[in-house]
């Protein structure tokens, strides 16, 4: 009988909301994309091709190691700087961070389309005090309309 008791779950977008609500100086956006989940996530999870399109300062991103859903990647900035990222990637969920940056994406099927969420935050001391500055920097990095552009690429596949 115990099996019949209702058990609540938390989908990936709700999980990313929790990270957003508990991360100082975060920028977070969520919207409905009128394309099937499978097509949207096929684009979003293609980190090597997609990350340079989403994050303004990233010129290249290479996966350097993988073990199940845990990956490591190396980003190279337009100025030539390198940064190693730890990544967790699974269907509907991507969370990555290095010493200075946190980046996340989440998606769930919704009304024949997809609810997609994106998150960015700087990991610096006093991030809550510097929240307005951080948001400005992150908005420049992630750019306006990043989710719209990702949606366009999903639809064009």
């Amino acid at each position, binding site marked *: 009988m115990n099996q019949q008791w*209702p*058990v609540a779950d*938390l*989908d990936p977008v*709700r*999980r990313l909301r929790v990270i957003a609500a*508990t991360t100082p100086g975060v920028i977070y956006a969520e919207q409905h994309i009128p394309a099937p989940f499978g097509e949207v996530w096929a684009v979003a999870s293609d980190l090597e091709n997609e990350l340079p399109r989403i994050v303004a300062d990233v010129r290249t991103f290479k996966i350097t190691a993988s073990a199940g859903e845990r990956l490591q990647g190396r980003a190279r900035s337009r100025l030539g700087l390198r940064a190693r990222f730890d990544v*967790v990637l699974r269907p509907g969920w991507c969370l990555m*961070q290095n010493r200075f940056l946190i980046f996340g994406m989440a998606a769930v099927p919704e009304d024949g389309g997809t609810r997609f969420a994106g998150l960015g935050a700087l990991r610096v001391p006093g991030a809550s005090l510097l929240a307005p500055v951080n948001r400005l920097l992150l908005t420049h990095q992630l750019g306006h309309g990043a989710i719209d552009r990702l949606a366009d690429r999903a639809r064009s596949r």
Partner: protein
Amino acid sequence: MAPMAASPEIDPALVRAAQHGDRMAQGELMDALIPFLGRICGPIALQDGPDAVQEVLIAIFRNLGQLRDPAAIFGWARAIAVREAVRVARQAARATVGELADVPAPGDPQLAADVADVLGRLTPEHRAVLVLRDLDGLSEREAGALLAVPGGTVRSRLLRARRAFRKAWGQ
């Protein structure tokens, strides 16, 4: 009712890392906490269970720095979960007042021995007592402390909740 599974083991280093702002550790900690919280919030908040779990996790991670003993995280999370699940369920104003007369007679096809259906006829407070005592195996005193009510109130709520189930299943 079968007692709830024991709290899973958690690596203290994971909790410490999350306390220091490591979001990968926070993600991993969420993976470990969600099944545990879902078993508490589901029966109390019913259709609003996901809202309750989300609110619980926000409360947990906003206050994680206050947790001194990482090994105590599940007990600490349980207290937050019960409080938030009752609050969310009450706020949703979907809970019907727990009148046992509302419980359908045995054999009612609408009931179909659906646990969620019977739970939905109880108040969030009655459901919370049922979860803590019958599913989680807490004592009256422990349940009363979590719910901030005397042991006698826990006992009377539990009796009413159990009677609702007995009626529903015709036992």
